[in-house]
């Protein structure tokens, strides 16, 4: 059962397919906003298959780590997908890990990207890696604060299935004032975790030529792209299970997911890329203040 969950549903295969479709929605909407036609629905699959067939070129440095880094990212995202999916399907039992485990596992894709970039020994990749790690530092503070609000609101629960069950009985965390504040903060952190505009400075194509990914080609690049697409499913699902799990019937989950996806795409298409120090100031300044207000609201019971 665990292996079915892991490889097929809701683990690897399911997340990958939905992620590719979501990524197509993103591209299509972006294209329409910019008065272009946009790709057909199977474009992400075609891209993936085409990349697999390409030649793999590795830089002369640290070839092993260069090739293993994408696999680490893929493995961690798949584990999180399985964990969240199973907790949603069967909220009566704990599976694999709790909230803290998920928070830590979700830092692995960024870590893997940084390691892969460093291993390629390209100066532009180093610049990308440096931006990525600074971005991680920046969004991690408000992200952790919004997680703290979830823990406070649920009365000290950290098992994901318990948090879901708590919301099924007591209504979603989002419906409280502090929960709503935390949810908004978490959405912006999710945007940064996805590496989408306005927080895509580590892969800025125009200035550092895809930065961290500059030396990647063929199958390793395909896996990094696939990981990003899977994150486009995993992160919204993560937020739904923490903040918005009052009703988890299939239609509601799909609706909630689509709403989050639309928000992500809207933010992406209405903002220019910011510089890394602006991102740091944004997350450590206004975002943190807002989150602290949220924590205070949670402490006094709102």
């Amino acid at each position, binding site marked *: 059962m*665990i292996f079915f969950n*892991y*490889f097929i549903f809701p683990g690897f295969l399911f997340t990958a397919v939905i992620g590719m479709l979501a990524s197509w929605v993103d591209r299509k909407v972006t294209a329409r906003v910019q008065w272009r036609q946009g790709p057909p629905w199977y474009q992400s699959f075609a891209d993936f*298959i085409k990349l*697999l*067939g390409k*030649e*793999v*070129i590795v*830089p*002369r*440095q*640290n*070839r092993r*780590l260069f*090739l*293993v880094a994408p*696999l*680490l990212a*893929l*493995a*961690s995202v*798949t*584990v999180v997908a*399985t964990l969240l999916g199973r907790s949603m399907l069967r909220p009566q039992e704990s*599976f*694999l*890990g709790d909230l*803290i*485990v998920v*928070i*830590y596992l979700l830092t*692995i894709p960024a870590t893997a990207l*940084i*390691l892969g970039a*460093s291993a*390629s*020994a*390209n*100066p532009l990749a*180093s610049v990308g890696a*440096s931006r990525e*790690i*600074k971005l*991680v*530092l920046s969004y*991690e*503070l408000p992200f*952790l604060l919004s997680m*703290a609000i979830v*823990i*406070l609101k649920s009365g*000290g*629960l*950290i*098992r994901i299935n318990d948090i879901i069950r708590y919301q099924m009985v007591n209504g979603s965390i989002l419906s409280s004032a502090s929960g709503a504040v935390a949810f908004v903060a978490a959405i912006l952190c999710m945007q940064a975790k996805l590496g989408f505009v306005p927080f895509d400075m580590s892969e800025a194509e125009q200035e550092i030529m895809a930065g961290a990914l500059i030396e990647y080609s063929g*199958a*390793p690049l*395909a896996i990094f792209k696939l990981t990003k697409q899977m994150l486009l499913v995993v992160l919204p699902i993560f937020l739904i299970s923490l903040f918005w799990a009052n009703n988890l019937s299939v239609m509601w989950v799909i609706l909630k997911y689509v709403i989050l996806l639309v928000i992500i795409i809207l933010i992406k298409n209405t903002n220019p890329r910011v510089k890394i120090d602006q991102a*740091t100031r944004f997350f450590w300044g206004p975002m943190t203040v807002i989150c602290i207000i949220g924590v205070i609201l949670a402490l006094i019971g709102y």
Partner: protein
Amino acid sequence: MSALIAKFYPMLIVDNLSRFIFWAILLFGALIAVYSFRFMKEKEGLAKYYLYLIFTIIASLGVVLSNNLILLLVFWGFLGFTLYSLINIEASASATAKKTLIIVGGTDTLMLLGIAIIWNLSQTFRIDQMRIALDQPIAVFAYILLACACFAKAGALPFHSWVPDCAKDAPLPVVALLPASLDKLLGIYLLVRLSLNIFVMNNAMNLFLMIVGAVTIVAAVIMALVQHDLKRLLGYHAVSQVGYMVLGIGTGSLIGIAGSIFHMLNNAIYKSCLFLTAGDVESQTKTTDLDMLGGLAKFMPITFAGALIASFSISGVPPFNGFVSKWMIYQGLVERIAAQKTVVISVLCLLAAMFGSALTLASFMKLIHAAFLGTEGAHKKVSEVHWTMWLPVMILALLCAVFGIFAKQIPLNKFVFPAVGAGEFVGFWASSWATLLILFGILIGFLIYFLGNTKGLIREDNNYIGGGAVGQDERVSGVDFYNAIRELKFFKYLYKKEEGKYFDIYEQGKNLLGFVGKLFQFLHNGVLPTYLVWALLGTAVLFLTLIR
């Protein structure tokens, strides 16, 4: 073994806690000794070095087994002396050795005072017969005095400043043995004894420990972010990790205390592993300046593998051991939140601990990039170290993985829970299952690699930028990763103060002494009659008091 120690009861005693720390001390002693054979080969005063090494290990075992506070103090003080002598082996480190001796020795004096108060309160020196309630101010004072000695030994704020200096200047095996592993084991061992056996903790004392722990974690790791020297960077992390252990004990819940003891063991493992890899780098390239290093992974793959695993472990990447113990400490805090005990401070500490962990990850990404990956540095071509130097690294890295993956089966059930009792887990982490699934995930990735590229063809090529080969002047070192953060207003102020040694208790103490000295300087004018007048006056006052 236990029977032999039982003969010396009530001077010595062995229980589950001291037993596993006893074996840990022997393990680290043995590994460092093996490492030293090659590393110290060309140094002078080797006979002295090995003598003090053996003394250190014996004295540490003595501390762990003592059941008498005076005996414990004697061993404890002797350790301060061997530390001083070991640092002094390096001719250029005498100033650091002095600083270390003054901070560690000074807090030993506080400990003596604390023990005197305890005698006054309980009329005994036997640890197994003490249960002092912290209900009167004098008992609280004694607890704080003894805790100061623990903080200085382990390197928590505000007695931390000797650790980074020592890490930079002392011979490397000494750093890997004392500040990185044994001093942590002993400092936290005594703090646990204080909090569980000697005193009965109350909520206020727990809060004191939690705040010291949380501040230590964040402050030290922020300093570590901007270091330019590999060993000094590791030294600041050695301080930061102590914060987790103090915080864990402060939570006062079983799971938090068990987590902190587990973290103590884990920290000793990965921190000495990291210092040993730094030693490998130093012995091959003759420098630990991160500006000069780069691209070492290609030449020293085994050392790199050890450093990478230990870095994952210290940053709390699942499934390695550092993650499990941090996770247990967080659960201690969550338990406090659930029980509505001082919720505000518990939430703040939880945040400090988790954000500190993210900062640690960032700091180690910088280290890995600057020393082992990236473009090659200015050093000469190097090769992998002798096997006596990579074997200890590999053993410790293996322990990092095994203690993480089989956390519940081996270290927790065999060592930690018997020592302090098994706590109830608030969270859930099936480490072995998760590891298996992660491995399967990597397997999926490998299958994808072979799916398109059936012949397994991989072409190696050089790096190019804009059509040209990458030159030395285009090199981006990891050292400057965090300059953008350094320029933020608050951090700019903080780093300036730190560089001015504003937070260094040793420098502040020196300034205070200088000030007090100045107050009395006018008396010492060097004129003999003045001194005679003072001496006569003094004698007169003395006689008057005695005769009356």
